[in-house]
């Protein structure tokens, strides 16, 4: 069940109607729990059972960690939790990746290994809910939060349907306290949530889904297309991935808000970043803060004796972040490229005077270079193989002019136009202006916007890109 499908709208209407008619917080939590499992089970009930089992196990581990005074026992339980979650992730997401990589490596050594006949289906959102579960037991282990005493509450946290399948990755220390009290929403918040939901829908359906066929055309047959078409396709993919993922996040935050819960900001205009470091403060914030807190800091972070060790930590963290995105070496390379760029940026920055905000030219140059780098690395992210990525990169840099096929050149204007729109919307606080309208005027504008949005619905639904992660 995708957020953009009519059946989700029906599901949401039923959920909200029943939820707000319940007066007891306990009943509401039971109801949200049942709805969340129904939502997840709409993909495959077997995975809903698996989610329940993992969550229950982590809840139990956390209770044992908190209940134990002995450090070794606490360590044992947290290790068991980490091992369980990583095993689930490893088996369901990385099994074929590791096996195929081993077969390829053996092949280079002239050993022939047969491919396994078993095919493992990837449960939707597995990377998100395992990371969320991991953060819970680790936080309890670090004594940053107390364990959740109620199994129901923990199951609801781990399966909360608005963010279950594609984030934002919710941290228990922000979410669990919200469950303690009966949620309420103000009219202003309802309007803001409705605005955010529509904004997400427009990003996903009207923009990302409409440009994706052009991206697919070029990436599926890169040799046939001209250099300009390749540049066009890369820019379009840059738009597609942002609108797809941030659109989902907006809708998830909006749906949670309609239930009275607040989730973390996940995107903050990442293509306006003026450095690669700034980009990672704005792109997929819930993941970048997760890997910072649980990988980078666990490796020692920046408190290392030698700067090279800080860079090592950074590279390992970014490589892990790349691998999190997909079970392929191209994703690892993408993470590596971003890690390397951050190292270069760190070194380069040492030779520049501080306070770049006082030098507009430097900010503009930084923005341009960052955006170009991000665009180029999306090639690695989107291309199915290194060969395709290399070909697309050469086309993008106009080193190789290639084929004769094209896609409409006017599509090149979409990226700059959307950047200007985003800048203008942030400057004038468009969301705030709309939400501050009196209810009847808000409804008028909202109705008009929906009429436009559904006329931009492309043929067929396309799943959210980040569902595969």
């Amino acid at each position, binding site marked *: 069940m995708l957020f953009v499908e009519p059946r989700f709208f029906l599901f949401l209407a039923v959920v909200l109607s029943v939820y707000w008619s319940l007066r007891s917080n306990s009943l509401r939590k039971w109801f949200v729990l049942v709805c969340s499992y129904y939502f997840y089970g709409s993909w495959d009930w077997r995975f809903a059972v698996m989610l329940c089992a993992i969550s229950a196990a982590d809840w139990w581990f956390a209770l044992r960690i908190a209940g134990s005074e002995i450090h070794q026992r606490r360590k044992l339980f947290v290790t068991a939790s980490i091992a369980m979650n990583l095993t689930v992730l490893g088996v369901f997401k990385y099994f074929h990746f590791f096996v195929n990589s081993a077969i390829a490596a053996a092949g280079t050594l002239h050993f022939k290994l047969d491919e396994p006949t078993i095919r493992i289906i990837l449960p939707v959102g597995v990377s998100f809910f395992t990371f969320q579960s991991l953060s819970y037991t680790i936080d309890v282990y670090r004594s940053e939060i107390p364990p959740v005493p109620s199994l129901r509450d923990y199951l609801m946290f781990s399966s909360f349907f608005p963010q279950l399948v594609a984030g934002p990755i919710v941290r228990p220390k922000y979410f669990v306290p919200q469950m303690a009290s009966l949620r309420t929403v103000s009219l202003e918040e309802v309007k803001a949530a409705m605005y955010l939901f529509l904004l997400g829908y427009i990003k996903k359906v009207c923009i990302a889904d409409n440009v994706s066929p052009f991206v697919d055309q070029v990436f599926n047959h890169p040799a046939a297309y001209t250099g300009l078409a390749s540049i066009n396709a890369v820019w379009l993919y840059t738009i597609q991935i942002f609108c797809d993922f941030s659109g989902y996040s907006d809708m998830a935050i909006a749906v949670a808000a309609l239930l009275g819960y607040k989730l973390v900001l996940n995107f903050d205009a990442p293509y306006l970043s003026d450095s690669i470091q700034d980009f990672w403060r704005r792109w997929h914030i819930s993941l970048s803060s997760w890997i910072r807190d649980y990988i980078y800091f666990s490796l020692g972070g920046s408190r290392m004796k030698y700067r090279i060790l800080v860079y090592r930590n950074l590279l390992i963290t970014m490589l892990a972040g790349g691998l999190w995105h997909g079970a392929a070496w191209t994703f690892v390379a993408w993470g590596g490229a971003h890690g390397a760029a951050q190292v270069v940026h760190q070194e380069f920055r040492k030779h520049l005077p501080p306070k770049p905000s006082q030098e507009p030219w430097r900010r503009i140059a930084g923005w341009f270079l960052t955006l170009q780098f991000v665009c180029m690395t999306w090639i690695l992210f989107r291309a199915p193989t290194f060969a395709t990525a290399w070909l697309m990169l050469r086309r993008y840099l106009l080193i190789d002019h290639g084929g004769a096929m094209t896609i409409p050149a006017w599509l090149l204007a979409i990226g700059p136009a959307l950047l200007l729109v985003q800048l203008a919307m942030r400057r004038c606080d468009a*969301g705030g202006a709309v939400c501050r309208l009196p209810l009847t005027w808000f409804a008028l504008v*909202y109705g*008009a916007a929906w009429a436009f949005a559904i006329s931009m619905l492309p043929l067929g639904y396309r799943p959210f890109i980040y569902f595969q992660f």
Partner: protein
Amino acid sequence: MKSPLWMGPNRLPSTNSTGVSAAKGPVARLYNRANRSPLEIMPNPEKNPGARELFAALGTFAAGFLAVAWAIHAAIADPLRLHADIRSEKLVIMDEMRGRAESAAFGSSHIHNGFNPGAFDRALAGSPLQTRSENLGIAGGSQSEQRAMALAFVRQLKPPAHNSRACFVMLELNAGANFTSDHLVHPRAIDIYDWPTARFVSHLVEPQMTFKQRAGRTGYALAAMALHYTNVGMLSNLIFAPPVDQTQLAGETVDDRRGQIIGLYDPVREAAMAREIAAEPKQMQLAPATIEPGNIQLIDEIAAASAVKGVSFVYIAMPKLSDLALSYLYPDAVDASGIEVPIVNLARPDLYPQLYKAGLWQDDAHLNDLGAKMASALVADRLKQWYAAHGGAPRCGG
């Protein structure tokens, strides 16, 4: 622990280094900013709207929606011309043949596969009915699509250069009323289901039908009409129109096919068809079939819309292998506002046994090219006989 790489451990950005303030105002309040306790961000209770305000809001929502939907709909000049899979290629063929073809066959895949314009024209050559035709049938089509295509065809029709030619509009009598349910949310349906189309479909019901059938047929048309007037996907289709499928177009225009689609010959399939024909019962059942009011209405509408006078209409019932077990009996002709429309019922194994040979079938419901040639020649022969007995076809443009 200080991080040089991302934001501080307990800080989400409220401003960024470009100096642009991050999301603020009511929308920003939806986010759980990590530097604040969730207990601090409990929503401010505010007076809830009363029933009157809610109804007013629903009313203005509908008003805003309808106003913009109307404006978008008015801005889309011809929804039929929006991209709609294989119909788009057929429209290209129709445009290219404008002024060069004065007759066309319409319908579903049975016509798309089973009507050979060249064979039809050759069979009529030298007769008073001679014409030049094209195949505008579309696989997966329906009566509603056949109506849209036929109306578009007659509106662009030019009188033939020679006044001695006939103009035939050949319609498939037994095409389905609507598309299949998976085509409901699809440009094939959405683009054409305006109010006249929905009304036309509602006239394709018969009293003998079950309530479920009638409700399903009309309900589909109404649902598609709602999607049509709310422009679902139309603007996307206009702005991000996919290119016409050149492979499909080439397959339908090579060797003067004029829209006919030809499958590859497959001896295995031919053997399967032979087995299927042999398995059919020896005794065919013949059941009476009724002409629905919509079939008559369609002729009236097309005749009224035609840019030239004297267009002749033909209804064709295309054959299927299941006819060997059960075949339908149609009248020889129907009368539509004074126009007598002959019905060529090829789905009669007793009348056309030569069509029911394994080598003429692509599958159990579609003729192959050999079958199409034979069927098209049979239609032409039947028309020559019929018009010889009924005073000849009217002169096109006269």
